[in-house]
């Protein structure tokens, strides 16, 4: 059974600081999805990482994937308040659309 762990579970950081969220998963996966969820809202797709070593960046967020280590990271650069949300990772495989979501990291950016 695939297990997906994220850490930290809760992260409170000041505006302007950098930080990294980690996503570890227990079985082989060839791709990794990151989603964002605002309080009381649904999930919004952020990144799809399709291969080992893949790196994608959008604004202040950068995601990377190491399939050999079964690890993905989401790096936040110079955090701003509107990045406050819960971030979920979900490993997947080509040909199998099923996603198993991690526990989520609740990020709060403090002015």
């Amino acid at each position, binding site marked *: 059974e695939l297990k997906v762990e994220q850490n930290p579970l809760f992260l409170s950081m000041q505006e302007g600081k950098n930080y990294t969220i980690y996503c570890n998963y227990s079985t082989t996966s060839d791709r990794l*999805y990151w989603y964002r969820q605002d309080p009381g809202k649904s999930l919004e797709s952020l990144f799809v990482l399709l291969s080992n070593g893949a790196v994608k960046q959008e604004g202040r967020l950068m995601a990377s994937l190491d399939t050999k280590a079964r690890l993905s990271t989401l790096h936040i650069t110079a955090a701003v308040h509107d990045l406050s949300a819960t971030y979920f990772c979900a490993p997947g495989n080509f040909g199998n659309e*099923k996603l198993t*979501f991690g526990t989520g990291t609740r990020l709060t950016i403090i002015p």
Partner: protein
Amino acid sequence: EAGVAQSPRYKIIEKRQSVAFWCNPISGHATLYWYQQILGQGPKLLIQFQNNGVVDDSQLPKDRFSAERLKGVDSTLKIQPAKLEDSAVYLCASSLGDRDVETQYFGPGTRLLVL
């Protein structure tokens, strides 16, 4: 392009009552998913449809939950009878189903409270 639509947005029922949720996926999306998200947790897949066939329902509590996707478009998820532990947000998602890059697009969810 219209997103995934769900209704109702909120529902409060008493335990042992029944409830049904409706989902309309993005036009042209062959794959439809129902997730349960309990407060403070990540979404858990309940059932996955490819067109109108079930692909995966391994985590669906079949003694009380049922789902259908008639004509391969809209879908309904039913709970009968509801238990207190069914209080959660029920999310519907859809994807193209072309198995290349399967980004799932989520609806706004139905927030269920069982009293």
